[in-house]
């Protein structure tokens, strides 16, 4: 009985819905046949991936309140990406190439790994910074210019990820 209860945990249901939505988007036409096959395959994948599936505590954005913050965060990130590209384009196209590459260490404490990944990946996507390695709570970040290195202190993205992690 306990095993059956575990199978209906929130994480499994969400994974099932995500997989099924993915199947529906990729299938060429929505018919009874494809829907049934999709459900069966999704259930099989969920059963098979029991050992590796993220738990609810790990993925804080499974909660509805966090999802709203996450969507706002995505739009901020999008704007930052556009700015990053224009900055890098300027640096690359200017004849003198005003770069001053340096390594900086940023100390940012996040309790769970998924948020760490979100933070590290968004640092890579944003202006002139590139996450090289994560050791414990230390992020080793390579900055292309001095301005980018200074901007890493308590950046807007870090605040957002902190909000994602905070309790309600």
């Amino acid at each position: 009985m306990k095993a059956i209860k575990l199978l209906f945990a929130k994480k499994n249901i969400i994974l099932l819905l995500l997989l099924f939505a993915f199947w529906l988007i990729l299938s060429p036409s929505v018919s009874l046949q494809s829907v049934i096959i999709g459900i069966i395959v999704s259930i099989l994948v969920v059963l098979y991936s029991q050992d590796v599936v993220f738990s609810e505590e790990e993925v804080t954005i499974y909660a509805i309140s966090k999802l709203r913050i996450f969507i706002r965060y995505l739009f901020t990130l999008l704007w930052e990406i556009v700015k990053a590209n224009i900055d890098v384009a300027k640096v690359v196209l200017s004849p003198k190439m005003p770069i001053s590459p340096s390594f900086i260490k940023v100390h940012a404490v996040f309790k769970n790994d998924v948020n760490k990944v979100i933070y590290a990946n968004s640092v890579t996507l944003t202006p002139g910074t590139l996450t090289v390695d994560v050791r414990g709570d230390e992020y080793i970040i390579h900055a292309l210019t001095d301005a980018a290195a200074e901007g890493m202190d308590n950046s807007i993205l870090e605040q957002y990820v902190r909000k994602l992690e905070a309790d309600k």
Partner: protein
Amino acid sequence: MDLIQGIIVVLLTLGGAFFFLVGTLGLIRMPDVYCRMHATTKCDTLGAGLALLALMVYKGLSIVSLKLLLVIVFIWLTNPTAAHIISKAEYNKDNGSNGDRQNNELLS
């Protein structure tokens, strides 16, 4: 209506091509691995993003646009991860023993 759509598609495609050009130029001009990674990752994300966005506008609202959106999402997830792995390999090579030990742990 078609004219406006066409203009938007052309502008987006040009933007995508521009950022790919910048990324390639950066790859050639930058001095070392890390700086090159900056140029390629930044410009690839927006270059591919704009090119796919142009295709989405071209197709209009349909299931194909949704698929293209998924492609963008996956590119934006995998691109920083790949950049991170490449630069980490370079960093470990530069900093000797510590990195080697970590790699061995990963491999064994």
